[in-house]
């Protein structure tokens, strides 16, 4: 498959469960993927499918009522490999990685920034713990980071509090913080969902620039297929704690093979297709996580459901990059082959 040296992070059969009221929510139930250097992996799915929990697990930021049940998270730093799931949550090693090697951008920049400290202070905190710079150098670096992110008058802005920043600027300040120590991996959890489209375009431009200049691996979590088409190199579609389809953006968007991926793509109106486009809603709603379907999680909402769907399908490799979790994929995939041949 891909060159081993290029992989920055690989997750293997990861399971994260939550325990509340004597019940168990299998939020992430056997997820595997690789993230390559300088590439963007998009994790797509609806709310409650486990995409944010996957991100929190990699960062070891899970709440106390949950734990990693099984699986491996392997982080490759230079030539060493580190098993993140074995590190102590607040231990020295994990704290060394968190923020410097793996950084995260959160969805809502207002709640993620601390309102009682200046933005400059919050950026320099990161530099203080992870680098050997002195105070003056830290301040200079903070200002140059804000400048890189396109914030006007960074010398003045660095001493301001988050409330005097606008939504787009706060998100930039968050990215500045995340990029402070040149992380190998950047995890962005719905970074633009709370922002307007024009501001979203600015943030995307910035993220693409960072990817090219620093060779950072980006894990982008989103629910918007449009964002995927725009930024992704690789895509993983999640549903109820499993990856149901994964592959390159080309594989997944041009030849969607899992019924869920197809349904997702057909249920949003696409700009430029006019009033006569067909949109087909997915029937029903996502199942209760405490009362899951027995086999394939998507079966009750799927139009092609058969008896064989009572057993959880295994991951099947369709070609080098494209993999899928469905019993009946052959039927769908043949269609694309036919189309290509004719």
């Amino acid at each position: 498959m891909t060159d081993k040296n290029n992989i920055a992070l690989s997750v293997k059969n990861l399971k994260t469960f939550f325990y509340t009221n004597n019940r168990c929510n299998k939020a992430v139930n056997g997820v595997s993927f690789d993230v390559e250097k300088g590439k963007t992996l998009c994790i797509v799915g609806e709310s409650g499918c486990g995409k944010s929990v996957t991100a929190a697990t990699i960062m070891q930021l899970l709440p106390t009522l949950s734990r990693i049940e099984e699986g491996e998270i392997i982080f490759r730093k230079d030539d060493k490999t580190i098993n993140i799931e074995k590190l102590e949550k607040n231990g020295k090693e994990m704290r060394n990685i968190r923020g410097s090697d793996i950084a995260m951008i959160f969805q809502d920049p207002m709640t993620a920034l601390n309102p009682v400290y200046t933005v400059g202070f919050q950026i320099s905190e990161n530099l203080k713990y992870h680098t050997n710079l002195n105070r003056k150098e830290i301040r200079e670096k903070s200002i140059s980071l804000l400048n890189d992110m396109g914030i006007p008058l960074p010398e003045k802005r660095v001493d301001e509090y988050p409330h005097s920043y606008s939504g787009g600027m706060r998100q930039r300040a968050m990215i500045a913080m995340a990029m402070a120590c040149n992380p190998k991996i950047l995890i962005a959890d719905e970074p633009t969902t709370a922002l307007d489209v024009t501001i979203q375009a600015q943030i995307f431009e910035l993220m693409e620039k960072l990817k090219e200049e620093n060779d950072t691996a980006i894990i982008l979590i989103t629910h918007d297929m449009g964002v995927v088409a725009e930024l992704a190199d690789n895509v993983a579609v999640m549903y109820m704690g499993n990856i149901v389809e994964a592959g390159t953006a080309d594989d997944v968007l041009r030849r969607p093979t899992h019924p869920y991926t197809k349904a997702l793509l057909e249920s949003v109106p696409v700009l430029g297709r006019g009033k006569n486009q067909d949109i087909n809603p997915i029937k029903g709603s996502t199942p209760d996580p405490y009362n899951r379907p027995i086999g394939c999680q998507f079966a009750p909402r799927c139009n092609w459901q058969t008896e064989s769907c009572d057993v959880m399908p295994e991951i099947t490799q369709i070609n080098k990059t494209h993999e899928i979790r469905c019993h009946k994929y052959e039927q769908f995939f043949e269609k694309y082959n036919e189309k290509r041949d004719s």
Partner: protein
Amino acid sequence: MKKEILKLRDVKVYFPVKAGVFNRTVGHVMAVDGVDLDIYRGEVLGLAGESGCGKTTLGKAILRLVEPTNGEVTYVSKEEDETELTSLEKKDMDPFRKKLQIVFQDPHSSLNPSFTIFGSLQDPLKKFGVNSKEERRKIIGDLLEAVNMRREYMDRYPHEFSGGQRQRIGIVRALCLDPELIVCDEAVSALDVSIQAQVLQLLMQLKKDNNLTYLFITHDLSVTEYLCDRIAVMYLGRIVELCDSEDLYKNTLHPYSEALISAIPVADLDKKTKRIVLEGDVPSPVNPPKGCPFHPRCPKAKDICKTEVPTLKKYSTNGNEHYASCHLIDLPEIS
């Protein structure tokens, strides 16, 4: 011939900004700053724009949920009797409240958690003279079935429903008085994509069945294109472009609409276009820039844009009326 249902003339909504020890008014947020708009019977009019451009305030001003500071909102009945809503006494508004309804953005905060669905929904019916409880239950039950929910659900509490279901209850609440116009204020924005499609189809079906008119407020231009007949794009309290939904994408006239459309991520690898990235943020509506409000971010701005405020002028594209307010359009103006 198209008939109007609502006519808006020079509608302005200003909110005072107070400061200091004596709480004096030091300025105004010009949320809606002079909007002229006709809404025709039976159409879906989209109102699009970024957050803070005044689209929700305009929607509320139509229903007088926010009092307009200036201007006229005129309701035209089926028999073409005109009534100016803005000059009416509060209590004289009642018969018109029945005809103009709203679906709110957030389905979680628009239902009272301590009432059952029936308890919440029966109040408007009581107010408008449906006195027997049996009849009220029948009306609400029928409507719940019309939005694909079970009749028994009316005795449940809001926390028992998912977001999509709650939004449908919000739609039932708007429908139960048999309105003529519904303002949908970001009615599908808070929902997941698969649920969003269900609600969109439901709205279209209800429109067909009940001869409704929608004013559809949203920031999502792909939804407006699918749903709306005409689209008005707002920026800083003003309408900058108003035209048929198809023309907005094919013959965009205003540079702001152009940038907005190019910034939307499209889930289609073959349709990748170059995004036009606007610099900076939306200026403050307390202190809007002189001249064209868009000129500080406009990639095409010339000297004239900095001094003169453009007015909404009428052009023709594709044989349809097309309004835009920009100095730099070189199409012939139609009077």
